[in-house]
């Protein structure tokens, strides 16, 4: 029959094609595309968390704060100071990165439970501070954020944003994969597996922990900035502890330490409540909880482990 490479190539081509025709399939139901967009943004933020936890071994229970910083920075710059949108998004990413550096410092001294509590504290207080500031709209939230604009094109429709996000997602995921396969990425993983060994073979443990934190924060900041211009509304309570735990759940369900895990996790998180729908929506939370427990007990690599199993069954 086919050679393995050919099979894999065909499978990937089919997958890419599927992704590209998705908006045409759901042409009559734009809301589905809207939800896919949200899932992609969540996947982006989750990839940052995955980098931090899955590859860096650093717990964060305040990851939503990075999204909030990215989103608010970009939105305030565009709305109040009329900065070019592209530059504003970059500023949002940079702002989240700087914040990641600040939050990353505790990680140099703390690990395990202590780091979890410290990031939880910093994450919840960030949301609280945003709520008190006037420039961010405070408790009323920031409404009427302009829609995403790329140079001369305004991405007003869900379908146009969909393609843009697919490109962004692909670029970021490629970037993360290449980073992890680089010298620095191997150093990050070495620090996760054993700090002492890593230090002994000459890896600057502190620097790599900070790099991981900043990188993860930047990705989440990008996700937050794009989120702001997609949803057009930001409210601090959307980025509190609950959402941080949500991002954590997505990365665990999708599979920590796998590149495609965040996409699977985010799709699961966004789509499940829609599929079961109606009065059963709250049941989704129960299923999320059970899936987390299930993936810890049975599938340490989450949904992506299922995908790998199917792949090997089909000999892809």
């Amino acid at each position, binding site marked *: 029959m086919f050679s393995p490479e050919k099979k894999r190539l065909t499978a990937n081509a089919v997958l890419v094609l599927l992704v590209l025709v998705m908006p045409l399939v759901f042409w009559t139901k734009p809301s589905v595309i809207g939800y896919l967009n949200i899932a992609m943004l969540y996947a982006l933020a989750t990839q940052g968390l995955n980098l931090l*936890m899955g590859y860096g071994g650093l717990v964060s229970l305040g990851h939503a704060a990075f999204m909030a910083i990215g989103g608010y920075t970009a939105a305030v710059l565009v709305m109040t100071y009329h900065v070019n949108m592209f530059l504003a998004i970059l500023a949002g990413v940079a702002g989240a990165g700087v914040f990641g550096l600040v939050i990353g410092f505790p990680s140099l001294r703390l690990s395990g439970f202590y780091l979890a509590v410290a990031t939880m504290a910093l994450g919840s*207080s960030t949301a609280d501070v945003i709520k008190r500031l006037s420039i961010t709209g405070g408790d009323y939230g920031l409404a009427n954020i302009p829609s995403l604009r790329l140079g001369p094109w305004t991405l007003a429709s869900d379908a146009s944003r969909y393609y843009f996000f697919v490109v962004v997602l692909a670029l970021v995921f490629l970037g993360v994969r290449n980073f992890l396969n680089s010298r620095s990425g191997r150093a990050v993983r070495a620090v996760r597996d*054993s700090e002492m060994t890593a230090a002994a073979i000459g890896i600057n443990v502190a620097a790599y922990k900070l790099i991981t934190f900043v990188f993860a924060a930047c990705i989440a900041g990008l996700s937050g900035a794009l989120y702001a211009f997609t949803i057009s509304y930001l409210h601090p309570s959307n980025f509190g502890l609950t959402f941080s735990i949500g991002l954590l759940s997505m990365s665990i369900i999708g599979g920590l330490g796998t590149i495609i895990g965040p996409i699977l996790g985010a799709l699961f998180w966004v789509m499940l409540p829609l599929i079961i729908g109606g009065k059963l929506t709250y049941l989704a*939370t*129960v*299923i999320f909880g059970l*899936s987390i427990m299930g993936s810890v007990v049975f599938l340490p690599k989450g949904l992506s482990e299922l995908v790998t199993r199917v792949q090997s069954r089909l000999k892809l």
Partner: protein
Amino acid sequence: MNSSILLNLTLRGLTTGAVYALVGMGIVLILQTTNVMNFAQGDTGMFITYLAFFMITTAKVPYSLVLILVIAAGAVIGLLVERFLMRSVRSRSHLSLIMLTLGLSLVFQGLAAFLFNTEPRLFPPLVTGDPVQVGPVVLSRQDIVVLLATLVVFGILYLFLYRTKQGTAARSISQDEYAARVLGIPTPSIYMLVWAIGSALAGLAALLIVPRFSLEPSFMGLIQVKAFSAIVLGGMDSVFGAAVGGLIIGVVENLVAYQFPAIKDSFMLIVVVIVLLVLPQGLFGKRQQRRF
């Protein structure tokens, strides 16, 4: 502010802190013995409180009986969680254990929202009646009950940990689990006992604090964050530290809230981060060497 206001604020802070202490003591007890940071502590309590709510409003069960039932329900939930969830994954990494309890808390939240819907409900206070005035101090009866209950629980916990065979066993496991097994301590049953006590404390704490808020699936969220702050402040390895940490947080938070209401919640969290960085062993924890 004058001294009588200060005194009242402090006492009111103590009652809030007492609840943080109750939740925190349960978390530390479980953490110390079984090495699991229980992020489901608050939501276990929340779920039990829903059961209590329906016992009181629908089944008209008297309060004293509800109190006993709540403690029993917490103990049963703790036993089940240990036996069927934690036991199989004991040897996993800290991260996996945290994730497991986070999953559990989502299950409780989802179940509560699904079964009882999310609209806030008013929970009748344990005791009603006019506030009690002693000199310049005014305290509601509920607050007095909370303070007394915390004292009693603290005393019982102390007696359990230091005066019973099981308590000594639990402490020895927290020092060296392997050595404890070698000495013939039945670790699985001690784990179950500790989980039962910890979860019972969660139920009791939630029942005591709920009249001040309203009953909804997320009401324990912030309290649990405060309880975590309390145990960090007290040093994660002592039940006593968690109790004192909880009281300190309750009092400081109330004083700060009086002067600067806007920063009430963030203030303590920032303090916690600073404590973690400057004094990682907390106020009462044992000083540890940095381990890799």
